[in-house]
């Protein structure tokens, strides 16, 4: 009887632990859209992936967060990369409530020099950045320097992200 009671208590405790772990907002993304180091030729992932819930997005992009919130952002993941040890870039993946939200952000930011690219559901490239959407995801990749390799390297990284979405 006593043994049975202890087993029951352990089972309950285990259930509580699992439930608690799920409920504490563990900062792991449900999916990982970030290519690992060397998965894309020349690119190294140089930081941990950080994930921000909508309510915490201001901690990452205070002042910019509102436009994503109004478009229905659910969470944002970000990671840094380096190309051939020199060119630094950041990949932001915004998971929106629906595809319309991703579309809204993509269209809002476009300027005349945007070059349409066949990537995801829609995408544009500039010399130092690539922005595209796929389903409910909106991806922005920016490079911090302009080198002769930058546009092509960014595009390769973007394709790597797109393949994982």
């Amino acid at each position: 009887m006593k043994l049975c009671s202890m087993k029951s208590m352990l089972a309950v405790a285990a259930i509580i632990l699992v439930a608690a772990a799920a409920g504490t907002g563990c900062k792991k993304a449900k999916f990982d859209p970030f290519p690992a180091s060397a998965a894309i030729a020349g690119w190294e992932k140089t930081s941990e992936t950080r994930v921000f819930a909508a309510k915490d997005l201001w901690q990452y992009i205070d002042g910019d967060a509102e436009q994503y919130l109004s478009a229905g952002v659910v969470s944002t993941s970000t990671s840094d990369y380096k190309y051939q040890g020199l060119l630094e870039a950041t990949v932001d993946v915004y998971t929106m409530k629906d595809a319309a939200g991703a579309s809204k952000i993509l269209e809002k930011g476009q300027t005349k020099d945007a070059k349409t690219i066949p990537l995801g559901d829609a995408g544009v490239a500039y010399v130092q950045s690539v922005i595209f959407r796929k389903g409910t995801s909106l991806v922005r990749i920016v490079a911090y320097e302009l080198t002769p390799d930058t546009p092509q390297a960014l595009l390769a990284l973007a394709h790597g992200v797109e393949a994982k979405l």
Partner: protein
Amino acid sequence: MKNRRDFLKEAAAGAVLIGAESKLGLAAALDPHAGNGKSKVVVARDPALHDASGQLDEKRVQALLDRAIASYTGRDKPVEAWKRIVPVGKVIGLKVNGLGGKGISTHAALVLAICERLQEAGVKPGEIIVWERDARSIQACGLTVNTDPSRIRVFGNDVAGYEDEPVAFGTISVKLAKILTRECAMVINLPILKDHEMAGVTFSMKNMYGVVQRPFELHANNCNPAVADLNCIPTIREKVRFTIGDAMSSVYDGGPGFRPERLWQPNALIVGEDRVALDHIAWQMIERKRAEVGMGTLEAVGRPPRYIVTAADKTHNLGTNDPQSIHLMEV
């Protein structure tokens, strides 16, 4: 057109209050007015600040800083100029802005140039705190966190924390960073010029969002009147007395984050004490650039920086936004 030497003469002949002491016990050698009742703002430019590959030339940054400060103070020698700006024996805070991330944050080259001149003017390394909201923002500026008190300290509000008791003015109630309230006797404001999705423009006054715990609560109505209210809080109004604005790089749209497709290099520093006048001049620079590339005005796109007008009103009285009352020195 006046040359730099003329400006130096003019500044030297103005009502610069040598040796005066403010109620905070600071050097108080500055006079925000040019001797003619106008607020003085210096815009110093160097078209060759960035090389052909877009890299910042650090030696030219130091020279540009010296030129800006010399023009503002009327003192050709940097040591003499800086002695008129900062008190000796007090802790000086340098409030940078790293919110936009790497690529559009206050440049480390400017921070280092200022630190060098501060030390030459007699400020000890341990009396200098370079400061932002958190470690990530500091790193975005190209700086490394350091809390060793024998050296120049570089750390964020995430280390020092915020006051428990909020302070209020007008529409806002905020908890201030302890670095501001407890550590610094004087703060030199080092914002970076940017377009801002909510406020229209972020520069001198808006950079104070980095000294409160929950800045995202101050974004309603294009940050108006929150920006003006925030700058009226006595600790901010009295301690943050001088601005060396980084306009070496800027984004004219899509800010405050880094948007390389909207990046532009004004190659300038904007210096002054009247935070409203500084923001008015900065706003005009953004508008001119937007017009140059065929973009609508900030008013046209629904985010005019009305907080600048509010900051100049009788309730706030933080400075002037009247061009006739601003003595703009372009050097």
